[in-house]
């Protein structure tokens, strides 16, 4: 078997970017995903043959690239994407995990699923239609989930004669809207997924555009946070106590660092108990280290033999979160059964699951126009709303704005275990004074 240096270069790619795509049904999302996979040589011969075979047997002339990503019988039968699919591809510069999310309104919860772990979201727009309701909805979900980077891909530029003013107007409108929602970084790129303009290769048809191609942007967007700006958080997953002849006294707290960094010698506070101790050792999967950071899975050893179990949170004593039994949050309702005021639920936050009761649902957001409806009484599938929850035990919850990992939680139905809602503690969108003014104007005050 021969090896070309170009393909072999994949092996040296080091960093990983998780991103999600969002777009309406006919915006060309499948074509874009197909081209990214195809042009990065991630569609292999047998997969392409399978697609060609399936397309032919359906009477289609050209291979339908959507069949690459629509993996379920029901999806292929109906020609729509029902559920999130995860795709993997690599270039010499980076590896990618793509959450390919459905565009249908009724699958908003699946976009929430895809966006929850994404560092970047690609929102697709048809250049002929410009910013539409669904575009605003996708931007709002990305803002709500605090996806750090948003790419506006203005697709089908070939159908508007590659005109700069068309792109500029859409980019302007979207950027203004998304900035108001608090999206920190927006990159607009004019593309034609079908013709291949600015997806992987720079377009010869749009020499007025001086920015990166979609792939180039994906390869270079920063993925690591500035740890000095993050509050260090360590949810305890599991206590490791071998009690063997070789390790009679070993007691370590296993977990994945949720945010920031921890150092040997640092004083920590255990929440919710409030007890203090000092880190005497950090074992990073077999190696003893002096410092470890998110999202490393490590085992932390402490100077004092204090009562710590799964569900506790370690934080630097000088920077520990407050604990509370009253949670105010925005939730995205993801189940078919509703969530109502007075309902008893379970709340899962990091490694801790506690009993809780829904005290209030002050408002429900309509993503179409971002209008707010007060006191809806209940939330149903795909609703996004504000909730007030009282928990049976105190939680060390951060604002979701500060930490996606320690500011997020699930509401679970205690009867059958169904995941009811995805919760984000604190304010929902990044709020600035400028947004407050828009809030009044638009009639919503999330």
């Amino acid at each position, binding site marked *: 078997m021969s090896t070309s240096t170009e393909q072999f270069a994949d092996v040296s790619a080091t960093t990983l970017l998780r991103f999600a795509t969002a777009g309406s049904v006919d915006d060309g999302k499948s074509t874009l995903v197909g081209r990214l996979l195809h042009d990065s040589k991630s569609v292999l011969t047998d997969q392409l043959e399978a697609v060609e075979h399936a397309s032919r047997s359906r009477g289609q002339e050209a291979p339908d690239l959507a069949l690459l990503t629509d993996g379920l019988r029901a999806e292929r039968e109906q020609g729509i994407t029902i559920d999130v699919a*995860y795709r993997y591809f690599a270039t010499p510069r980076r590896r990618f995990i793509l959450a390919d999310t459905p565009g249908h309104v009724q699958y908003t919860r699946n976009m929430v699923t895809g966006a929850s772990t994404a560092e970047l979201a690609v929102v697709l727009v048809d250049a002929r239609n410009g910013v539409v309701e669904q575009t605003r909805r996708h931007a709002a979900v990305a803002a709500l989930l605090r996806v750090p980077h948003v790419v506006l891909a203005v697709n089908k530029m070939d159908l508007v004669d590659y005109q700069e003013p068309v792109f500029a107007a859409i980019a302007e409108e979207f950027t203004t809207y998304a900035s108001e929602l608090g999206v920190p970084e927006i990159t607009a790129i004019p593309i034609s997924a079908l013709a291949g303009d600015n997806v992987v290769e720079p377009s010869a048809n749009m020499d007025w555009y001086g920015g990166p191609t979609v792939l180039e942007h994906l390869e270079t967007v920063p993925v690591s946070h500035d740890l000095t700006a993050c509050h260090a958080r360590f949810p305890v997953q599991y206590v490791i106590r071998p009690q063997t002849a070789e390790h009679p006294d070993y007691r370590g707290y296993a977990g994945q660092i949720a945010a920031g960094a921890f150092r040997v010698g640092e004083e920590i506070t255990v929440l919710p108990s409030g007890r203090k101790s000092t880190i005497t050792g950090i074992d990073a999967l077999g190696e003893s280290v002096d410092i470890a950071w998110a999202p490393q899975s490590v085992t932390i050893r402490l100077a004092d033999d204090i009562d710590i179990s799964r569900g506790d949170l370690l934080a630097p004593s000088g920077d520990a979160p407050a604990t509370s039994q009253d949670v105010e949050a925005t939730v995205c309702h993801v189940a078919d059964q509703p969530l109502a005021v007075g309902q008893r639920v379970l709340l899962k936050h990091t490694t801790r699951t506690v009993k809780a009761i829904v005290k209030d649902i002050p408002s429900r957001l309509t993503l179409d126009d971002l209008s707010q409806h007060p006191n809806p009484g209940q939330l149903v599938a795909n609703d996004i709303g504000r909730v007030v929850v009282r928990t049976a035990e105190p939680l060390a919850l951060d604002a979701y704005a500060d930490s996606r990992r320690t500011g997020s939680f699930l509401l679970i139905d205690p009867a059958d275990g169904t995941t009811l809602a995805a919760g984000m503690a604190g304010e929902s969108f990044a709020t600035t004074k400028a947004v407050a003014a828009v809030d009044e104007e638009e009639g919503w005050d999330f």
Partner: protein
Amino acid sequence: MTTVAHAHDTTDSPFALSHLDSLESEAVHIFREVAGEFERPVILFSGGKDSIVMLHLALKAFAPAPVPFTLLHVDTGHNFPEVIEYRDRVVAQHGLRLHVASVQEYIDAGKLRERPDGTRNPLQTVPLTEAIQQHRFDAVFGGGRRDEEKARAKERVFSLRDEFSQWDPRRQRPELWQLYNGRHAPGEHVRVFPLSNWTELDVWQYIAREGIELPEIYFAHEREVFARNGMWLTAGEWGGPKDTETVEKRLIRYRTVGDMSCTGAVDSDATTLDAVIAEIAASRLTERGATRADDKMSEAAMEDRKREGYF
């Protein structure tokens, strides 16, 4: 005007994790979540590379304590001897407990019928699901990866199965952040896939980085094989070759390890990990496309088997 702000490459950040470290950290997190939340977890262990990597990750996740899980091998009866030897050696080396669910025993007892094509992979589902019920396993780790197959691309990391082990892709729980919901009713269980986000190349790179030992059949060696449906199969008591098929000696290796009747070898001279990685990186065929006959049975073969309880 194009952008509000422009990104710059910051991969030189001292806190950036390599992609292998990210995947390892995520998988370890998943193992520990299961240890923290379930009563009777088990790791499906075939002696294939994915389950070997799973076991390696589990060993690291709980060190210096032993792995708090038992192992389960669904034995088709059509095994490569090198793989069974490897399996038993690893189990002894780490002081693990191994359960074996035997397809052959089910056939001998008349509870399963041999298929005309001699393929036993689809026959694994019944012994697997019955072993889960019999031992009351509530979490079952599988080495399935989403890059393997289009139905698997839709699979959750925590996949709830009913008392019949059935997978219903339309009734999957949304999976948000790293908050895995493993709640289940008595009789139900959760299939857990710590390698969901790994690709075949990731697995090989990780094996090389960690210096993990593998059964020899993953490396190029001379073997007597015969061609069937475009694949090189090893002759054996399972029913090959037929009269019309001729055996020849070739330099081959295996990309996957499974039932001998449907796991094909590829022509290869890769005798080292580096050579295998170079070969995988250059291959224009997927792992399953190159070596698995059972996935070619129909367009939705994997989805259908998963619905019935296959892993």
